[in-house]
């Protein structure tokens, strides 16, 4: 036990408290590749998918400048989606977008006719909330890598419970963003108000 109380252990504690660290709440607990597989399967069931982007599914992968976890998740998402032959039986395109502000994101969604916005880890509660407000009225699925995202402004998020992936959906935000899933699909998800 004295080993644990040695100077190095004290340094360990100090490092953990002082050094900037990815907060647990900001970590994606479901592997990003699995998130992309789930997203690609899920959007098939969105009744309004056909009204967005026509015969192409455009995914904007939102990364936060200077955030390592965000950059890594963005690269993984880009690669996973890029390796798919099709998404929802449609052509698809993915693009890494560096977050400037919510209004710019909303404009990008309109301009590029985005079907999906995937928000990587690293965004604050305020930023997620602003994203949610800016996407209101735009027909787009917003999905966050971090489990708490759906409670903070996005439509969907991914959680890991007992080793199994879990989808969370904020129904109110989904309605604002014209995302329509049947009860048959919603029963597979944790529904938030």
């Amino acid at each position, binding site marked *: *036990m004295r080993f644990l109380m040695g100077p190095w252990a004290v340094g360990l*504690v100090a490092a953990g408290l002082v050094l900037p660290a990815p*907060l647990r709440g900001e970590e994606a607990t479901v592997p990003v590749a699995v998130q992309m597989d789930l997203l690609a399967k899920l959007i098939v069931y969105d009744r309004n998918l056909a009204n967005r982007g026509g015969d192409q599914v455009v995914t904007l992968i939102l990364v936060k400048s200077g955030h390592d976890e965000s950059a890594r998740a963005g690269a993984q998402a880009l*690669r996973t989606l890029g390796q798919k032959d099709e998404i929802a039986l449609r052509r698809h395109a993915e693009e890494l977008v560096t977050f400037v502000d919510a209004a710019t994101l909303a404009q990008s969604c309109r301009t590029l006719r985005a079907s999906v916005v995937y928000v990587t880890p690293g965004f604050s509660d305020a930023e997620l909330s602003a994203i949610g407000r800016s996407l209101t009225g735009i027909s787009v699925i917003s999905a966050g890598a971090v489990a708490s995202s759906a409670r903070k402004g996005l439509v969907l998020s991914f959680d890991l419970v*007992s080793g*199994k992936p879990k989808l969370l959906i904020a129904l109110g935000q989904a309605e604002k963003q014209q995302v329509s899933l049947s009860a048959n699909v919603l029963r597979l998800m944790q529904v938030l108000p």
Partner: protein
Amino acid sequence: MMRALLPLLLMAGMTALAPPPARAEDTGDLEGLLDEAIVSSASLTAEPASLAPGTSVSLSADELRRYGINTLDEALNYLALGMVTEAQLGTAEVGSRGVLLSRDYGNHVLVLLDGHALNEPWNGTAYYERGVGVPFEMIDRIEVVLGPGSVLYGSNAMLGVIHVITKAAKDHAGVHGVVEGSWPLAGRAGVGVGHTFQLAGLDGEVTAQLEVFRSQGPSLTFGPQYYGTDSVTGEPKQFSSEGPGTGIWGGEASRSLQLQVPVLYGRVRLGAFELGLRMAEFRHWTPYLYGNFDDPSGYERDRWLSLDARWSHRLSAATSLALRAYGDLYTYEERAGQAAAEDCLEGQLKGCTYELFGGSRWAGLEATTSVDWFKDDRLVTLVGADGRVRHVASDDGYRDSAQPEYVGGTHEYSHIDGILGIYLSQIVRPFSWLALNAGARLDFDAGFGAHPSPRAAFTAGPWDGGVLKVVYAEAFRAPSAYELYYSDTLSQVPAQSLRPETVRSIEASVEQRVGAQRLMAGAFGSWWKDLIFTEYLTEDEKAEASSRGELVSSSSAVIQYRNVAQVRSLGVNAALEGSLLARRLRYGASLTWARARQLLPDGTEAELPAAASWFGNARISYDQGEPWPVLALAVRYASSRPAMDSSFDPPPRAPAQVQMRATLSGSLPRLSAGLSYRIWADYALADRGPYAVGPLREPGPGYSAQELVPLPRFQVGMGLRYDL
């Protein structure tokens, strides 16, 4: 031709099992993705179980509750693929893929709790029943990785790795209370808490649970076995300290089969720093293993105190670092009353009490860094080092019943050493459907120098929903301190130059997912060398030992730990799981067949005692929806297997075992929000296990069949849980 046919055949089979597409949208594919477990124990990175570099299964908290599982050994028997346990009354032995090395104290499987190894260095012991000492409500999942796992974890991970992972506070939020009781008499009570908070701008959480389990009984009948006279006194041998000796062993055992397990486990996290604490005690005894028959004063007691501190940080988009410091205290006590003079030291004519003390303390530091060279999981390198310092000590002795004199130190030892393991793992994913994983660990031990443990795995998903996997791995177990240092001048001489036990394994499997249904089939082979068993000394060897002062001249049967055994196992396994009716109906099954044989010096082979060649399980549950209970039924099977510790030729066989557990579970919102219940009943068809009992182990007058350990056949229990 076969490459084209195989996926078609598999998909045809799965399609036949899958329900016809509903008129509404078919969500089977989505359900299948949501039902696939994400595991991390096989490679230290989170990934779908089908893509892990080894056969991995994950047993969720929901499954544990749904199927009435109360202990780790029950989870392995009823829910897992490839592992099986055998009950010895109070403790359980574990085997995998046909190999079960009886009396190994569980030291061929590495058991982890949130990344912290539970196997202690004195004897390598890990427990698989109540003695694992983990509050059950805190368990989020149990990951089981079959086959050699030393490439990342070092010693003991030969049969596999069992990783118990506890819940995060978000999944254990609030205050929880649990009360359970069962017949034969047992009870468990616990209180737990889970809470998230913010401190100094950092996210934090705490989870903790305290629980106590006690059981007494059941009452089981043993013998009678007519042993005869005490070789020292010439009188009928005493098997009890009460009353005169009768020379007869056995009777109704109702007082000594007892377990007591208090446990406290907690974790605190603040930012990137996490601290874990575990305090546990496992007090247990059986009517027949040591000492007097059904002696309530006898006991074995294991105690643990573990501390674990870890810190993780992402250094860049490509690189992460994790540091872990840990320390453990472990003590073992055994106290066995022996009323017979022939079981005691010379002069202890009124009997004695044998007392054994063992203990270990160890502390270590582990550092792991991961480099994702292209930041997109295409090329990932994992490098780590784990060094620890250990102190082990032991002593035993005999306390004379006629007077309080304690004669100890027939052997005692105390040793300090250090070990170091360095590991490297390289993952390459050049395409979305292909992954290559190669790695090795080098373990340095003062006892045997350096030992490498390599692994190579190939995983491919060449068609939709299909995965092919081939894995080669090696593992080892370092000799335990008990094997290295134990000796006494009566019956055991010190071991000399023990080498680590080794195993090489190769496995191949194919998995197919069709919607929410999943089928897996595989084959495996493992080759074991230098297994440490005890061997009897020849007369010449005994003479040499006497000349060295290691034996008294009157010693008769004398043993020594040696690297003497080889085992080979070849087999196949299959598993099926899925869900139907909008996931209200869930089912699963697994089956393993293995031909495991010990290779004897004369070129012949022998079955492994207590190891079943066929074993498996099946389960089904139906969620009727609130307010009705979830109905669940689980069944396990183990084929007939030879008994351990008998000199009968051929060795007696325990009958095949079929055990069933029915469970009802649900909530009681009308009584109180947060109140839930669980009722279970367990029935076993076989009433005998594969362990010889009693002093008679060979044929004799009036004793023509080896008595095997009796097993309780029926158990029923009920529990209430309150979540505030």
